[in-house]
C-alpha cells in the first residue's frame, strides 16, 4: 500500500517534469472547450443527456433483457453471438476463432474494450500478429506503450517522438513532418488490410432492437477492417447496448460533438449481420463482454456509469489530466471516469490510488454528455476504498481522534498559533494604491514562508498563512464597534441583537482560525444592512475534509454535532450563511447522503441542509445595491471557486456571475482574467497529498492573475484564498487577494 502511494507520487513528479506534455494537453484543453462550444450548447447537452438515459439500460435486469434481444436479432441476421464473462474468456474465444479459420494476421480498428482485456498480448503470445490500424493506436503499439487517452491514444507524444519511433521500427527517415508520417501509415497499413485474415473492431453502440453494431471512425479504418478480411470479430461491452435504432440519431450527434468537437465523424459503419466481402467466406462474430459490467449494473450508486459513451470529455476538461496525462491518471481507461470504471473492470485495488488524484473540482460533471456525477462517485469510491483498506495511519488518527473532538481540535489550533511564531514572517502592510482597503483586510497578514526539513515541500511555491493569534469566535465575542452587539448568551455570539432580523453564521475552520477577518467583514456588511448575525459556539469542522479522505464515520459525527449546534439558534429555522463554498456544499448535500440510515437524524439533517447558503448568494438575493454603482471604482479580478461554480445544488445557487454582480453593486470594476474557473490546486488536503501537482496548478493560476492587470483579486473560498494568497506572496506579487466579503466591507468603509 504505502509502496503504491509512493510510486504514484513519483509518477506524478515524473509526468510534471516531462517537457511539453502538460503544455500540449493544456493547449488541447483550451481549444477543446472553445470548439466544442461551437457544435453543442447547454440546451443540446441536456437534451442529449435525457435521450441517453432513455436509450441505455438502467439496471442489471434491463441490461440482460437488452443483451438477449440483441443476441436474438443479430443471430437472426446471421451473426454468431457469444457471451464472455471476463477478459480471459473473451481472449480465449477470439483466439479460438483465429485458430478455427487458420488465421495468423489480424487487423484491428480502435477498441478500448480490447485494451481492457489485453487482447493483443494474449494473441501475440500464441503466435498471432495483430496490427492496430487507428493511427494513434498504431503509434502507441509501435512505441510499445499504451494509450493515454480514450479518443486520442498518442496525445502524449510529439511529432518528433513519433518520427523517431517510425525510424526505429520501420526504418523511415528520422525527420518526417506530420503529413509524411500519415502517408507512411496509409501505405504500410494498406498492405496489412489487404492481407489480414480477420478484422477486429469494437463498437460504439449495439442496437438491441435490430442487432446492429455502429462503429464510428474518422480515418476509415473500421470500414476497411470490416470489408476486406473475410472474417469480422466485434468485441462489445454490455454497456454499449442501446434500445432502438432511432437512439442512434442522438448518439451519432453527441459522441463526435463531445469527443472531437465535430458535428459528425467521417465514417459511421452500421452492421447488421455479415455481408459478403471481396474474398470468399464471410463471417461475423460478436462477443458481448461482461468483465464487471453486470456488477456495475447491479450497483445502485455506480450503474449510471453504463451510460458512459467513452467520449473523453471528462479527461479533456480535467485540470489534473492536463498536468500529468493518462498514463499517470489512469489504468486502461484514464481520468476520473477511468478510475471509476477501473474499480469495476480491473478491481478496487487497481483503482484505489488513481482515484486519489481527483481534486474534486467537479468540472467533468459539467461537461459529461451522459450526466454522470463523476465527482460524487469518486467520493463514494474513496469511501469504499477506505472501508476496505483503511485510512493512512496519520490521517486516520488526526481525523478520528482530533478533528472530530471539537474542544481538542480547537485547543490544538490555539496552541499551534503560539508555537508557529519562529516560522512566521511579516505581511506587506497596507495597500498604497487602494488605501481605503485597510491593513486589516488580508494581505497584511503573516505568512509561513518556509517549513523545515521534510515539510519544506508544503511551502515550496506557496507560503502558508499563519494561524490567527485570536480565532474568529474570540474576536467576534469580544468585538466592539459592531452595531448593537451583545456579549455571549447561551453559547452563541451575536451582533445586531437589536436588528429586526438575524442570520446564523457557520464559519468553518479556515475562517475561524486562519481568516477571522472574513467573518468579521460579513458581520459588518450585515450590520450595515440592519441584519444581525449569530455564531453558535458549538459548531465545528463541517466534515468535508473527512469525506474527501473517505472517512465517513468522522464526517458523520461532525455533521451531527453541527446539526445540534444550529438547531438551538433562534427557532431552528432561518438562513445559515457560510463564507466557504466547500463547507456550504457539504452541509447542504452531506445529510441526504450520510444520514439516510437514521430516520431522525436524516430529518434533522435535511432541515439544516435547507438553511445553508453561501453568504454572497444571500447578499445578492436579499439586498438591493447598497451603494451607488460607480464606474470609477478599483479594478478587481474574480476567481471562481470550484465548489461554488459546479455541482452546487443549493437553492438559489448563484451562477458564476453572482459575486461579480455583487462586487459591481459595491462599486468595483470587475475585469476578467484568463480561465477564471480553472482550479487553483488547493482542494483541501489534496495540496498536501500531491504538493508538486498542486503547485503547478497554482503557478498557472498566478500567471492568469498577473496577466489580468489588476491590483485586486476577489475569491469566495478561504481555501482558494490560502492557496492563491500563498502563491502571490511567494511570487512577490503586488496583487492583493481578499474574500469578496472583505471587499464589500472595505468599500462601504466598514
Amino acid at each position: 500500500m504505502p509502496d503504491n502511494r509512493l510510486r504514484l507520487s513519483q509518477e506524478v513528479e515524473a509526468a510534471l517534469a516531462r517537457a511539453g506534455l502538460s503544455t500540449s494537453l493544456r493547449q488541447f484543453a483550451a481549444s477543446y472547450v472553445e470548439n466544442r462550444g461551437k457544435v453543442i450548447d447547454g440546451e443540446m447537452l441536456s437534451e442529449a443527456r435525457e435521450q441517453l438515459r432513455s436509450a441505455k439500460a438502467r439496471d442489471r435486469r434491463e441490461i440482460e433483457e437488452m443483451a438477449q434481444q440483441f443476441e436474438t436479432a443479430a443471430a437472426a441476421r446471421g451473426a454468431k453471438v457469444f457471451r464472455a464473462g471476463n477478459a480471459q474468456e473473451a481472449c480465449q474465444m477470439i483466439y479460438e476463432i483465429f485458430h478455427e479459420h487458420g488465421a495468423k494476421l489480424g487487423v484491428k480498428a480502435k477498441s478500448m474494450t480490447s485494451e481492457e482485456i489485453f487482447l493483443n498480448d494474449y494473441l501475440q503470445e500464441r503466435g498471432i500478429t495483430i496490427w492496430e490500424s487507428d493511427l494513434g493506436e498504431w503509434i502507441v503499439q509501435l512505441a510499445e506503450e499504451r494509450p493515454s487517452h480514450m479518443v486520442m491514444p498518442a496525445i502524449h507524444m510529439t511529432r518528433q517522438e513519433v518520427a523517431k519511433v517510425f525510424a526505429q521500427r520501420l526504418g523511415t527517415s528520422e525527420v518526417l513532418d506530420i503529413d509524411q508520417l500519415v502517408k507512411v501509415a496509409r501505405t504500410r497499413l494498406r498492405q496489412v488490410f489487404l492481407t489480414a485474415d480477420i478484422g477486429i473492431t469494437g463498437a460504439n453502440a449495439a442496437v438491441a432492437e435490430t442487432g446492429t453494431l455502429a462503429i464510428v471512425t474518422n480515418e476509415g479504418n473500421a470500414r476497411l477492417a470490416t470489408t476486406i478480411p473475410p472474417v469480422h470479430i466485434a468485441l462489445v461491452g454490455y454497456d454499449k447496448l442501446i434500445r432502438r435504432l432511432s437512439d442512434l440519431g442522438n448518439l451519432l450527434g453527441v459522441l463526435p460533438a463531445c469527443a472531437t468537437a465535430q458535428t459528425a465523424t467521417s465514417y459511421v459503419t452500421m452492421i447488421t449481420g455479415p455481408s459478403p466481402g471481396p474474398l470468399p467466406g464471410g463471417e461475423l462474430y460478436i462477443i458481448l463482454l461482461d468483465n464487471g459490467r453486470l456488477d456495475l449494473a447491479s450497483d445502485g450508486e455506480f450503474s449510471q456509469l453504463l451510460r458512459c459513451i467513452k467520449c473523453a470529455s471528462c479527461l479533456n476538461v480535467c485540470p489534473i489530466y492536463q498536468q500529468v496525462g493518462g498514463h499517470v491518471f489512469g489504468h486502461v481507461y484514464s481520468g476520473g471516469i477511468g478510475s471509476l470504471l477501473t474499480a469495476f473492470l480491473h478491481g478496487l485495488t487497481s483503482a484505489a490510488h488513481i482515484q486519489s488524484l481527483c481534486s474534486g473540482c467537479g468540472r467533468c460533471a459539467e461537461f459529461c454528455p451522459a450526466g454522470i456525477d463523476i465527482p460524487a462517485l469518486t467520493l463514494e469510491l474513496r469511501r469504499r476504498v477506505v472501508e476496505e483498506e483503511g485510512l493512512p495511519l496519520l490521517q486516520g488518527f488526526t481525523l478520528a481522534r482530533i478533528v472530530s473532538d471539537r474542544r481538542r481540535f480547537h485547543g490544538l489550533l490555539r496552541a499551534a498559533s503560539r508555537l508557529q511564531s519562529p516560522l512566521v514572517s511579516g505581511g506587506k502592510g497596507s495597500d498604497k494604491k487602494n488605501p481605503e482597503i485597510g491593513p486589516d483586510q488580508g494581505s497584511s497578514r503573516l505568512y509561513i514562508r518556509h517549513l523545515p526539513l521534510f515539510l519544506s515541500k508544503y511551502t515550496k511555491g506557496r507560503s502558508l498563512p499563519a494561524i490567527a493569534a485570536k480565532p474568529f469566535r474570540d474576536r467576534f465575542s469580544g468585538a466592539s464597534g459592531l452595531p448593537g452587539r451583545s456579549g455571549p448568551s447561551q453559547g452563541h455570539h451575536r451582533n445586531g441583537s437589536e436588528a429586526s432580523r438575524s442570520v446564523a453564521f457557520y464559519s468553518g475552520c479556515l475562517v475561524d482560525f486562519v481568516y477571522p477577518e472574513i467573518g468579521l467583514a460579513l458581520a459588518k456588511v450585515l450590520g450595515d444592512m440592519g441584519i444581525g448575525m449569530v455564531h453558535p459556539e458549538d459548531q465545528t469542522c463541517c466534515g468535508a475534509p473527512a469525506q474527501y479522505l473517505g472517512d465517513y464515520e468522522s464526517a458523520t459525527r461532525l455533521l451531527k454535532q453541527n446539526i445540534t449546534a444550529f438547531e438551538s439558534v433562534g427557532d431552528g429555522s432561518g438562513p445559515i450563511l457560510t463564507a466557504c463554498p466547500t463547507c456550504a456544499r457539504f452541509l447542504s448535500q452531506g445529510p441526504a447522503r450520510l444520514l439516510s440510515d437514521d430516520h431522525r437524524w436524516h430529518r434533522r439533517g435535511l432541515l439544516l441542509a435547507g438553511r445553508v447558503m453561501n453568504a454572497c448568494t444571500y447578499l445578492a438575493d436579499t439586498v438591493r445595491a447598497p451603494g451607488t454603482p460607480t464606474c470609477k471604482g478599483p479594478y478587481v479580478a474574480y476567481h471562481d471557486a470550484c465548489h461554488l461554480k459546479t455541482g452546487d445544488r443549493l437553492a438559489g445557487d448563484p451562477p458564476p456571475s453572482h459575486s461579480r454582480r455583487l462586487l459591481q453593486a459595491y462599486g468595483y470594476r470587475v475585469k476578467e482574467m484568463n480561465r477564471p474557473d480553472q482550479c487553483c490546486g488547493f482542494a483541501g488536503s489534496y495540496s498536501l497529498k500531491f504538493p508538486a501537482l498542486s503547485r503547478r496548478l497554482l503557478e498557472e493560476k498566478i500567471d492568469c492573475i498577473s496577466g489580468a492587470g489588476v491590483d485586486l483579486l476577489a475569491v469566495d473560498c478561504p481555501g482558494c484564498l490560502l492557496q492563491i494568497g500563498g502563491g502571490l506572496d511567494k511570487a512577490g506579487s503586488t496583487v492583493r487577494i481578499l474574500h469578496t466579503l472583505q471587499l464589500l466591507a472595505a468599500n462601504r468603509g466598514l
Partner: protein
Amino acid sequence: MGWHLFAGFALAAEAAGATVFSARGAGELIESVATALSDLRGGDILVPSSQHSVIEDVGLRQALEAQGFSVIAPRGLSTHAEKAPVGLTIVDGAVAETGSIFHDATDHESRLASTLPPIHVAVVPLSGLVRDYGTLFAGISEGGQPPSYLALITGPSRTADIERVLTIGVHGPSELIVIVSDLPSLTGVSKAAKASRADKGQSERALGDDTSA
C-alpha cells in the same frame, strides 16, 4: 422534387471538407463529374458492377471514357482496384444537417469503390436528401430491418492523432466530391432510400421552399 434541403446540406458538407455540386439533368451531372476530375489525365475509375448500366443510361460512362478514363468494377482485390485513382458510386441519399451522405453498402464493391481510391465521387439522388439523423433512422425503422451494411460518410478520411494536427486522407479518400442530381433514375432501390420518401412531406412542411438553392 425540391431543392429546399440542398443549401443546408452543401454548407454542412463543405464545412466537413467535401466539395459539393448541384446538377440539374444529365447534362449538368456529366459536366460536374468532368469538372471535378479535370486535374486528372485519365486512369481507372472504380464503379460497382451493379451501377454500370445506370451510368451508361445517363451517358456518364461514355463521357468519362471520352475524357480518358476506363470504368472498371472493383472485383476481388485486383491490383487494378488497389491502384485506381478514383471511385465513383451512386449513393442512396444525404443528411442536410450534418452534411453526410449515406448508402446501403451491403454490396462490397460499393464499399471498395468508396474507400480504396484517394478520390471518391458520390452521386446523390436529390430525392434521397433528408433533414437530419432523426428522419433517416425513422425511415429505416419504418422499412423494417436495416440493411446489412449501412454507411454514413461525412467529408474525407481524416486524423488528428499526431499533435492534434488535422491531416486529411489516412485510410480512406483524401477527397470527397458530392454531386446532388435530380435525375429520377438514380434513386436507389435499397431500404435506406426509403427514408427519403418518408421524410419528404414532413421536411417540406417544416422548411418551406424559401431555402431552395
